[in-house]
């Protein structure tokens, strides 16, 4: 494997490790100050409550927004570095870019799409909550729509990205 590809894999590993570490910090601090228990045996029971009592969904949306935002920024840093090889030599870029079409990278790109979709749609929801002065019920319904759109668009886009590796 060419050195430039190994370098990229090392960078991607660092990005993923950074994201896992950041998520651990977010969730550990959330468990201490976010209020209420988290994923415990009572989780499903709490989930069965009527929608308007499920205000903690907003809290989970906040954690997920932070973690996906950090993940996208971390990948952006690596992506600027990998595209910059084009300025050194287009051949070097092509050698590195060959990785993007491999099956594991395609799975990673599908995951990246899901992160971008959630962060974008939830961000639009937050702007709408402020601009339209939406109340807690309306913003929770919007959050359910964000989750549904993320799943639908992420699955459709992810299938298009991953399919060539298994064709």
């Amino acid at each position, binding site marked *: 494997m060419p050195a430039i590809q190994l370098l990229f894999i090392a960078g991607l590993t660092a990005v993923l490790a950074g994201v896992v570490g950041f998520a651990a910090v977010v969730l550990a*601090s959330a468990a201490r100050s976010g209020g209420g228990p988290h994923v415990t045996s009572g989780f499903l029971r709490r989930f069965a409550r009527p929608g308007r009592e499920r205000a903690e969904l907003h809290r989970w949306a906040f954690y997920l927004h932070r973690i996906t*935002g950090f993940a*996208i*920024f971390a990948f952006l840093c690596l992506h600027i570095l990998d595209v910059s090889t084009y300025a050194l030599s287009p051949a070097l870029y092509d050698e590195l870019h060959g990785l993007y079409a491999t099956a594991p990278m395609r799975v990673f790109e599908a995951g990246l799409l899901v992160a971008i979709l959630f962060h*974008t749609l939830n961000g639009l929801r937050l702007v709408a909550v402020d601009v339209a002065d939406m109340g807690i019920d309306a913003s929770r319904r919007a959050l359910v729509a964000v989750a549904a759109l993320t799943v639908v668009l992420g699955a459709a886009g992810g299938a298009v990205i991953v399919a060539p590796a298994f064709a």
Partner: protein
Amino acid sequence: MSRALGPEGRAFRGGDRHRVAARPGGLAGRRLAASVAVRVTGLALAVLVLGHFTLTHIVTDVAEADAGYIARRWQSALWLAWDWTMLATALFHGAAGVWIAVEDYSPDEPARRRRQLVLVAVTLALLVLGTVTLAAGSGA
């Protein structure tokens, strides 16, 4: 400076409530300006990034987005403008978000300042690198 203490007198851990020192010069006004800037850049990125991702991963298969694809695309001033705007906007938006996360999870003032300094340095370096890449790639 000694390590900041949390509410119960032990060392600060992420998630503790702590007072961020008020800074002179209209803190509330700057917070408002920052939150408006993050939302406006976010709206722009919704178009720029989803457009970029759709074109290079879904409309075009990623295997075909090679050096030849970049060479063709960067002949157009419009695509150069798109890519540079996306670069600068995404770096600003991302750095602003990580800045706030650092503020929330950093144990004490020196650690917070050190991390924010690294963040700004990395962001500016990447902005310069991306701009140089676009300039070199366009043949300017």
